[in-house]
């Protein structure tokens, strides 16, 4: 009985969510990092309402970017070390589909908590409700891109002993468009302007990365496994 790719896809998501659940304390780290980085800014600059409001979109988004990057480490590392990644590469299923399953479950446990935490941080920074709504919307569109693009970098640096620094050098420049459009959208909504344009761009980036990133990641992993 040869299993279908869709059942392998679902089984892999389930397995990864179960693994995350059994390591649930590790999931807290990027989230705490996200919160701490944002709370450092009022301490370092000034707790003045006007200033924080201006900085808020950029600060929260940069913190989300760094937190997403920190969480990438758990994406393929353990699978690579215990040989389950090899078994995935050797199955007859499309590697890109299996990689997409891994990225989706990774986003569910790292991206979604960031989105849910963001309103609280918005309130810390005196952001009005309208801005918080846009912030969550941009995070909803943006964090999957961060996971997808980050996966390519993670796939490329997997075989290296100290790939952490190289990973940030590879991935952060690619995060820039997401940062620009998202922070800009939040700024624009705070000024009462239309944000459709920025959201369309984020949506286009999401479609682009969801279709191409799994293929690139699968190829990168193939090189790393060899």
């Amino acid at each position: 009985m040869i299993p279908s790719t869709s059942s392998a896809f679902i089984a892999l998501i389930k397995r990864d969510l179960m693994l995350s659940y059994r390591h649930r304390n590790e999931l807290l780290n990027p989230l705490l990092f996200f919160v701490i980085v944002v709370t450092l800014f009022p301490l370092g600059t000034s707790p003045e309402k006007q200033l924080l409001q201006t900085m808020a979109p950029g600060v929260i988004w940069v913190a989300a970017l760094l937190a997403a990057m920190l969480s990438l480490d758990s994406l393929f590392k353990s699978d690579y070390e215990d040989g389950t990644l090899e078994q995935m590469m050797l199955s007859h299923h499309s590697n890109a589909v299996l990689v997409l399953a891994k990225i989706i479950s990774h986003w569910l446990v790292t991206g979604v908590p960031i989105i849910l935490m963001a309103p609280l941080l918005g309130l810390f920074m005196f952001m009005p409700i309208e801005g918080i709504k846009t912030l969550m919307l941009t995070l909803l569109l943006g964090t999957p891109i961060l996971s997808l693009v980050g996966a390519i970098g993670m796939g490329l640096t997997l075989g290296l002993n100290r790939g952490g620094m190289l990973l940030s050098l590879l991935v952060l420049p690619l995060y820039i468009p997401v940062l620009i459009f998202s922070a800009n959208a939040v700024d624009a909504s705070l000024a009462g302007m239309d944000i459709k344009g920025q959201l369309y761009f984020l949506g286009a980036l999401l479609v682009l990365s969801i279709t191409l990133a799994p293929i690139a990641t699968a190829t990168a992993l193939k090189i790393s496994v060899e």
Partner: protein
Amino acid sequence: MTDATAGLHVKSISCSRGYRDLFTGLDFQLSAGQVLRVEGKNGSGKTSLLRIMSGLAQPLEGEVLWKGKKIHHPESEYFQDLLFIGHRAGIKFELTPIENLCMAKALNGSKSENGIEEALYQVGLYGFEETPCANLSAGQKRRVALAQLYLTQSKVWILDEPYTSLDVAAVANFEELFTQHVNNGGSLVITSHQPVNLKISEQYRIVLPNTQLEKFA
């Protein structure tokens, strides 16, 4: 030479590690019902050869064909017929043996609908189904990985040092399974530093770095 479309054809491959050539011009075929033992000293390239045969690594020169098609060709269907178990067993320590085998089944398929418990019983892990693999001994973890062999319907088994940390009784059990698999028309590629006793007539061996295939008596 057998029929060119019969099975696995390793076509004049070469492999090197760094600047050192491990082997060059290795060429042989493996058909259904045959066993290939890959032997040689540590560092002679046994694992490299097995990884090339399983498609995980690329040879420096040459190619590997399955039924006349390159193994990575989309129509070769090699990966439906392949089961590779390497040094790294592919077992998640946080998961129980049942959960591990469920994943293996979702990836590679199985002979029967509910064969997982049967497979665990066969490898002597009855009573450990719900224990996280982290709490099992090295030999028991190995058994979880090898339990896939009872589950799979793959024709080609490529096993890299399967006997590591197994006890004598388990080895005997697996040898019986290997014999059964090969007699049912499967093929087996195996490396082992321990003696392998299979009651199969069609056994060949390669002692790396020699590239000559010889009949094993």
